[in-house]
């Protein structure tokens, strides 16, 4: 049984999805989906434990040995990302029953869980597999499910947002597929380990560079790197609140994982630099993304949209970490991947609680909420402080490593810009704080109660995660450090 964990990780949510369709009642479907989600989370915990104690796991699907068969390969990096995705996925599912009750009609809720589980399975599959074509398959599964999830938003503009993402996502996926095709024609293999062994021999060829370029651009579309981020704000704003919490904490993280995996494990460290100054491109795009997205976030009247733009900015930080190109830089990226999932998960779940009570995430809805929904607002404040990078939160840990990496590499201007960027976060977070705590709720409106426990508990679990991993960062920092060391081959 334990030998089959790598495949169970993906198969459980994948099979649970159609099973959910058979359960006609919303509540039953929710219970079933949540059970599947928790099982997935348990599996990823076990996988991490196994990898930590006995090294990378290779699983031959159907008993066909790699490189002929499809290999599932779990190393420290994938176990780490699986943990993030399945953890957030399960936690958001726990909150989902209450969270979607006011946004999706009850009759359609079983379908919601079907798409949710499919999306989860796709995301986990991308991370678990060691076969590059399999990556494409799972990418499509998760993307199609994501379009459907977004389209379930109450606002009719959700359809448009989903359509927009569909177009962009398809372009991205096609680019990736073209890249994979080129690689296959060059090497005759789709297995990542095998590819990595064969690529150096043909590293000088134009086809290899072209493949690399297609793949990088395609993945950057999926991870919403500035200026390829235009699909993200609409998608996050108009999707049901619960979906936003799930996507913001997982989907872009998986794309970042994919970029790291392809750049460092498949193509290898030196490959990109021999063709084009990718590090410099990442540094510049990452920083411009931080500033442009933060400045736009400051002006948003809709809080969901505000934090969506903040997500684009935070992705910028992860890309900057990759652009630094050192062990500490990559460690910072991986840490922020984990930490940002905690922050945005907590923030968007809290926004879901506000939307549950007020049916809106417009800034005007937040007036006086500091009194009316103290626990929800406290969660937003702590999540916001974490975004800023205040000590004792996870944001500080990310920022510490990122700035340390830039200083070690002698990139002083980058360090300065990173810190200036976090000051912009103060501005947009404080806009929400001031409205919630200094403005009164207009007289005559219905009294607002604190959010129900079903939403508060998952939100606060994530908030506590923000504080716990901010105070005891040893676990994540060591994990990210070892994963980065395995990728970049340098001593810490």
């Amino acid at each position, binding site marked *: 049984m334990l030998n089959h964990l790598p495949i169970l990780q993906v198969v459980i949510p994948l099979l649970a999805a159609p099973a959910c369709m058979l359960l006609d009642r919303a509540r039953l479907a929710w219970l079933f989906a949540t059970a599947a989600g928790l099982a997935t989370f348990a599996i990823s915990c076990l996988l991490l434990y196994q990898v930590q104690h006995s090294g990378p796991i290779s699983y031959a699907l159907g008993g066909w040995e790699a490189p002929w068969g499809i290999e599932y390969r779990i190393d420290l990096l994938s176990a780490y990302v699986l943990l993030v995705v399945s953890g957030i996925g399960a936690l958001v599912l726990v909150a989902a029953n209450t969270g979607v009750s006011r946004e999706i009609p009850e009759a359609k809720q079983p379908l919601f869980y079907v798409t949710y589980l499919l999306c989860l399975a796709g995301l986990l599959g991308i991370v678990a597999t060691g076969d590059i074509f399999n990556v494409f398959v799972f990418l499509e599964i998760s993307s199609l499910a994501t379009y459907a999830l977004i389209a379930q938003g109450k606002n009719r503009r959700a359809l448009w947002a989903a359509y927009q993402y569909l177009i962009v996502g398809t372009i991205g996926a096609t680019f990736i597929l073209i890249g994979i095709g080129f690689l296959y024609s060059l090497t005759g293999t789709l297995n990542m380990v095998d590819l990595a062994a064969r690529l150096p021999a043909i590293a000088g060829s134009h086809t290899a560079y072209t493949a690399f370029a297609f793949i990088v651009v395609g993945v950057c579309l999926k991870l919403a790197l500035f200026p390829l981020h235009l699909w993200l704000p609409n998608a996050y704003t108009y999707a049901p609140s619960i979906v936003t919490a799930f996507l913001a904490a997982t989907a872009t993280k998986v794309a970042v994982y994919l970029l790291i995996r392809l750049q460092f494990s498949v193509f290898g460290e030196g490959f990109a630099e021999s063709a084009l100054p990718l590090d410099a491109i990442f540094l510049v795009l990452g920083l411009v993304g931080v500033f442009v997205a933060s400045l736009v976030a400051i002006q948003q009247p809709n809080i969901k949209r505000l934090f969506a733009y903040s997500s684009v900015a935070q992705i910028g930080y992860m890309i900057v970490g990759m652009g630094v190109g050192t062990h500490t830089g990559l460690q910072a990226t991986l840490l922020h991947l984990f930490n940002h999932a905690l922050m945005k998960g907590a923030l968007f779940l809290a926004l879901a609680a506000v939307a549950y009570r007020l049916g809106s995430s417009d800034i005007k809805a937040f007036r006086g909420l500091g009194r009316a929904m103290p626990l929800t607002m406290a969660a937003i404040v702590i999540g916001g*402080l974490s975004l*800023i*990078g*205040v*000590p*004792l939160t996870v944001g500080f*840990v990310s*920022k*510490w490593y990122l*700035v*340390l990496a830039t*200083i*070690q590499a002698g990139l002083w201007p980058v*360090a*300065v810009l990173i*810190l*200036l960027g*976090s*000051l912009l976060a*103060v501005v947009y977070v*404080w806009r929400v704080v*001031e409205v919630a*705590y*200094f403005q009164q709720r207009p007289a005559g409106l219905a009294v607002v109660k604190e959010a129900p426990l079903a939403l508060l508990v998952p939100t606060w679990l994530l908030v506590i995660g923000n504080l716990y991993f901010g*105070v*005891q*960062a*040893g676990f994540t*920092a*060591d994990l990210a*450090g070892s994963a980065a060391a395995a990728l970049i081959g340098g001593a810490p």
Partner: protein
Amino acid sequence: MMSLSPQLAIVLALALPLVGGAGILLSGRRPNLREGVTLVSALALLAVVATLVPQVLAGERPQVTLFELLPGLEIRFVVEPLGMLFATVAAFLWPVNSLYSIGYMRGNNEQHQTRFYFFFAVAIAAAMGIAFAGNLVTLFVFYEVLTLSTYPLVTHKGSEQAMGAGRTYLGILIATSIGLLLPAIIWTWHLTGSGDFTPGGIIGDSLEGPLLVLLLLMFMFGIGKAAIMPVHRWLPAAMVAPTPVSALLHAVAVVKAGVFSVLKIVVYVFGLDTLRGAPGVELLLYAAGFTVVAASVVALRQDNLKRRLAYSTIGQLSYVVLGAAILAPLSVVGAALHVAVHALGKITLFFAAGAIYTASKKTEISQLDGIGWRMPWTMGAFAIGALSMIGVPPAAGFLSKWYITMGAIQAGEWLALGVIVISTLLNAAYFLPILYQAFFKAEQGGGKDHGEAPLPAVVALCFTALLTLVVFLFPGVPFELASHLGAEAQP
């Protein structure tokens, strides 16, 4: 009590205010019980901190490591003389201030008093963390906690004006700490592989020339709480807070946390020897000297009493920075002493300003004609506080000024000496007229008929005024701690 181990005492010093804070929240519906909780935790904190003093004076450096924040980065506390001095001052003035707060907050029917006392307690815990911090990261963590926990106090009134002031407060303090202090700490970490406070400094010769001074200035301006111009604007802005907040936080805990950090970093991170002779290190001296004089000139032109006190605070804070920048052991002693004596004097002045407001609702200096005869105790205490600011015996302010001046002469820093002389004159020019108005001018008609403020407030301010005199006559513990620091600064 004496059997308390020093490690436990450090942990208790951090925990007691927080436990008190929890108690305050729980007893929020019963004001008398709530205020009881505040006073009991304040007194308990004082007792705990007091047990540490003899040990530090005996040369021990008790330490405790709580946990590891990141691999290699510990939250660690070490008690050395300077931290002991700061902790003693804060712990000593918290119960006094609480007594005063009860009179003030009830006298003015302020809203949300539970929230007020709660965040006050958290801020004290943060001040303890800063005082006992054993490395730069621990200092930074509690520095930020102090900023955030005082934000709800500054914006207590919840008005538009309070919100705007809160923006300035948070904006400047967060911007300087994240924009300058944090990179300075990470840079130090990168250079030395450590951030531990060590007598004689840790920088050594890992950095030279202009870069050394750049790092120094990043630290000094990064510590926005020390209010060196131009990062001083938050301090006058914070005056919208209720007076007890201005008194304890903006005369004692917050600003002293700032200059304490300045002094600590100069002595324990750089080391006087490393800095002495570094090209361009005079820049800090110029910045501090400019702030002392400029703040005094601005204070001269303020009619609002609290704003004048705020600018006076900015000037007095830069005395401490000046004492550090002179880079002489004697001036460091004076600077450390100034942390304590300025706290006593300034808290008296703020208490008096708040008492005047509570009794008469007067906030402007021009309204204070003849008030000395209506509120003799308050204005008597105000006079003692003012004398301490100017540095006239028998007020304690004389002591610290004496040592800073001695240090300036010893080091041959004539510019610093000139700054001290000019600023003393300016201090006299903006404090003495208030006393003249209060005691020698006749009251204008039409005012409210009033006497002294509520008793707890008057008791508190007389007590601190009395202490200002006592410390001059018997400098005892503060002086010994300061001279221990002087010895560590020049090993």
